[in-house]
Each structure stands twice: as structure tokens, then as C-alpha cells.
């Protein structure tokens, strides 16, 4: 059912968007640079700030992969929506659990201080 004329037009496609080569290469280059940056960031000690930086860079990289390598930018919105929903629920899962474990840690710590043997490796 594909119209022949569609075939002729380069990079035109009746089923899905075709990612131009320069974009692919550009994204790749950026990813490499960012990778170098994260490693470099650990050479200088920024205290607690190292973590946000590392995570920030990772997130930028992830976004690039998702948008271009995975076509999300040109895809039907529903796919992107699914992806985001997943992230939201992961966040809910991790944050609430973390919050709770922070809250009850003292009772665990106290026990460990008072009964050293029972919880060694």
C-alpha cells in the first residue's frame, strides 16, 4: 500500500520518522563529552554537591538517548507518556520508602549499638 512517490523522497517515510544522520552523530558526540565530564567532576571534591552533579549529567544523557536514539521526540505522545509515568511511579516508590526508613533508623541503630554481635557481617 506504500505510495511509490513516498519511496523516492529521501528521508521521507510513511510509517515513522527517520532520524537524520547528523542528529544521531551530534547526540553521540554530546553523550561522550558528558561522560567525560562526570568522570572529571569526581577529580575535584565538591562534598555533597558531587552527587547532584553526577545525577544531573546522567539525567541529561538519559534524556538525549530517550528523545533522539529512542525517537520519543517524533513519536506518538502516548509512548513518551508511558515512559514518564513509569518514572513518576519509580519516584513514588523510592521516595516514600526512603522517607520511612529514615524515620525508623534510630531504633535500628540503637539496637545495633547495644547488641553488636547480632548484626556483624
Amino acid at each position, binding site marked *: 500500500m506504500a505510495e511509490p512517490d513516498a519511496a523516492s523522497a529521501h528521508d521521507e517515510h510513511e510509517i515513522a520518522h527517520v532520524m537524520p544522520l547528523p542528529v544521531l552523530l551530534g547526540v553521540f558526540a554530546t553523550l561522550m563529552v558528558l561522560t567525560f565530564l562526570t568522570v572529571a567532576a569526581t577529580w575535584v571534591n565538591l562534598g555533597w554537591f558531587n552527587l547532584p552533579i553526577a545525577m544531573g549529567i546522567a539525567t541529561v544523557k538519559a534524556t538525549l538517548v530517550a528523545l533522539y536514539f529512542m525517537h520519543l521526540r517524533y513519536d506518538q505522545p502516548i509512548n513518551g507518556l508511558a515512559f514518564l*509515568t513509569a518514572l513518576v511511579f519509580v519516584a513514588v516508590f523510592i521516595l516514600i520508602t526512603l522517607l520511612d526508613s529514615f524515620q525508623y533508623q534510630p531504633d535500628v541503630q540503637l539496637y545495633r549499638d547495644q547488641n553488636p554481635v547480632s548484626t556483624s557481617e
Partner: protein
Amino acid sequence: MATTVDGNITDLPADGTPVNYLNCDHGIRSWVFTLDHKRIGVMYLISIMASLGLGGLMAMLMRAELAHPGQQLFDENTYNQLFTLHGAVMVFLFIIPGIPAALGNFVLPIMLGAKDVAFPRLNLFSYHLWVVGALFFILALTTGGLDTGWTLYVPYALHSDTRVLTAGMGAFILGFSSIFTGVNFVATIHTMRPPGMTWFKMPLFLWALYATAIIQVLATPVLGITLLLLSAEILLGIGIFDPTRGGDPILFQHFFWFYSHPAVYIMILPAMGIISEVIPTFSRKHIFGYHLIAYSSVAIALFGFLVWGHHMFVSSQSQLAATIFSLLTFSVSIPSAIKVFNWLATMYKGSIALDTPMVYSLSFILLFGIGGLTGLFLATLSTDVQLHDTYFVVAHFHYTMMGGTLIAFLAGLHYWWPKMTGRMYNEFWGRLCAVAVFFGFNLTFFPQFVMGSRGMPRRYHDYPAKFEIFHFLSTMGSFLMGMALLGVLLYLLYSLFKGARAPANPWGSATLEWECSSPPPKENFAETPTVSDPYDYDPIKYDAEKHCYHRIPNVE
């Protein structure tokens, strides 16, 4: 032939019975390796019925043991294995796949007006996974059993010398079976809708299945990783959950309930979907508040993810978390309330026929009402301190799972039975057993509320004499219910051979699956049917001498 009248059937074989998905090809392989969603649905149906029988059998044995204080039939260990396997079989083998994979598989594409689900191979694979998972359960059951409770709490599960690994692997596989069903349904509903079938033209059962699929996809993987971690803990001793290695057993409970609470809405949403189909049909009234029922399904699915900690109010979870979870838990009860009242409003000034599916639906409203309302006691922080891990909880979840989901499953089973098998069952026996189940059920589980709030702990092989009367009544009720359900099985089996042939549309429903013949042809529809309001019963007219309904397109 009644079946040929308005089913779109072109050719008739010699013997007169029209070609349908059942008789189109023969041989065991044509079933085991079929890609036809209808046949897969039927195989699922048989399998989960068997599981229900197994789980029910264990339940009967448990009740017999509990009839009186002291030991009646089994020692502690046997009893512990009974309730564990009863719970695990009922949850993982019966109720989770129950409505979506069996009934949903059969009707979803037809209701949608599609030829099949989006990924028939994945669909079959999902069933095969179910079988493998079930085999693992059987293996565990026959080689040492399982005695951890279906919740598999650590550290007990690490100490237990029963088949935790085998059963865990089984549950893991069953989880993926469930995930694939979910993936399939989402993709199908998004991409297979014929022109005219807009989101808000979809029957509410499809909305329910869609909401369910969301949960299956988002929650089940967490069960998967939880079971992997548990296995790693047992095999390698990774220490994540093991306090003797610096691990945290409460973390396991968070993991487990992040899946298992949403899972209870995997169980109930499809049930609510069935009720939303049956009640308008047998009241010949347009469903009341279509949009809110549709939205509330999605709302329940999403809110359901924010409340898992209500199973941990006294588990030494922090007070802050407990408070948040309690608050959020109530948010789920509102959409449920809306549904209940909208169903009632649908019946207002209708023309209500008490056929078996309707009888089950009415008892669903009452029983789920009780189950849900008692959920409020448990969602409330201070009362849960008194009620947690008592028979009150046991009663609550049987009212919701059995009184809710199983009853709705029976409603759906009777509702679509003619469509699936092409046969009518015996109405008299149908109604009789439906009523018997209702009374047997209440006799079984209502006393459990009372003893529960008085302090009777769950998972007890033996109990103080002061609880005897309640346990005894409960046992009596369960035997009554058991017999009634056996009756259901028997007259349904009977109808397969001796039942009257079913017309295309015996109930006067307006959804698409009743447009094709009973049983449907292999491809469901020769030409894609025209879509109209699934709850508009005006064009559905009764045909007295054929005892069935036809769609007479009304001319404006």
C-alpha cells in the same frame, strides 16, 4: 437455526451447525498452540476454574480443622501449609488472571470490534507461562509445601525449610504471564479500535480492563524483583532483607506491598467492569454516569499505588509514613463509592429481570459494600491497631475478593456463557445456587468480623474456646457455600451437552460481542460492525418466538 439468524455467518457445513471458533478446527494441537484469543480465553477459564477448585478444597479442609478448638484433622505444620497454599493458589493462580485473562481475553477484542488482540503470540505465551508457573506451584505443593503465608515475610521465609524458592519462582513466572496480558490489552485498546469506537464509546468493561492493565504493567515487575531479591537472599545471603547481616526486614514489606496492594485492585477493577455491563443490560437502562465510572476506574488504579503502607501500620513502620498512607488510603474509597451509587441509580425506573447474572451482580453490590466499608476500619490508624492480623482482616478480604471478585466472576461467567459455549444453562439452578452462595458466604465470613474485632488472631491452627461458636458457624457456612459452588460447576457442565442452543443475543445487551453469533466465528466479524452507544437499548428488540433479541436499527 436461531444462531444463524443475525450472526454474520456465510457458509453452513453439512450437519447444519454453523462454523464457529469451537468447531472450525480440531485436535489438541489446534487448542494448545492456537493464536485465537477466544480459545486462549477458554483454556485460561478451565485452568483458573481448576485452581479455584484446588484452593477451595484447601479452604474446606481448613474450615474443618477450625470447626472446634484443639486439633481436628491436621497438626500445626500441615495447617500452616494449607492456608499458605490456599492463599497463594487463590491469589496468583485464580483471582489475578481470573477475570482479565479468562473472560477479558475472550470478550475484549469482540467488544472492541477487532479480529484479535494486538499480539496473539504474546497472548498464547502468557498462557503457557501461566501453566509453567502453575506447575512450579504444584511442584512446591508436592515436594515439601510452603508455610510462609502468602505474604512470604522475611526473616521467616529465610528460616522456613519448605519450598520457598520453588513457589517464589512460580509466582515470578505467573507475574510475567500477568504482565504480558496487561501489555497486550493496553496495546490492543490503543491501536485496534475500529473507526467510530472512540474512548467514550467503549463499554465500561474495557475501561476496567484498561485500568487493570495499567496496574499489571506498573506494579507486577516490582513483585518480580522482590522475589528475585528473596531468592538471592536465600541462595547467596545478600543480606538486603536479613537483619543478621545488617539488612532490613521492613524493607521487604515495602517491596511486597508496593505490588500486592495495587494487586487487590487488579482483582476488583475487572469485577466492577462486569457489574457495569450486567446491571444496565438486565435493567434495560442506560448506565448512569458513564464518564465518572470510567474515570473512577483509572483513579482507583492510580491512587491504588499510593497506599501500600496501610498493611504496615503496626509493622514498626514510622508514624509519619503510617499517617500519610492512612490519609491516601481513604482517597481510594471515594471512586468506589461513586461506582456503587451509580450502579444503584442505573436500576432506577428500569425493567429489572432477575436472571442469574443479575442475581450475582446484586449480591456483589451488597457483599462488596460490606467488604469495602470494613476496609475503612482497617484504613483508620487506631482501629487497625486492634484489627490488624485478626480475623477481621480475613473477613474483610474475603468479602472483597470472594464476595466481590469471585461473585462478579460468576456473574460474568453466566453472562457470557451462552456466547462462549453456544449453550444456555438452567436458569432455575442458576438462581438457586446464586442465592445459596450468598447465604453460605455470609454465614462463613460474617462471624469472622465479630471474632476478629474481639481479638481472634489470623493464621492460628488452634484458638481459645471463647471463639468456638464463631468458628463453628463459619465452618458450617463454608460447607454450604462449597456445595452451592459445586452445584454451579455441575449444571454448567451439564449445559455443555444438554443445554438449549444459545441465540446470538439472549439478554438484550447492546455491546458488540452480542452482534456476532454464539459461539462467535473464528474471525469474530466478517465485516467490521458499526459502533453505537453500548448502553442504548432502544434498537434492541425482543423476538418472542425465537426467545432472543435483535438489533433493529431505528430510523430517525
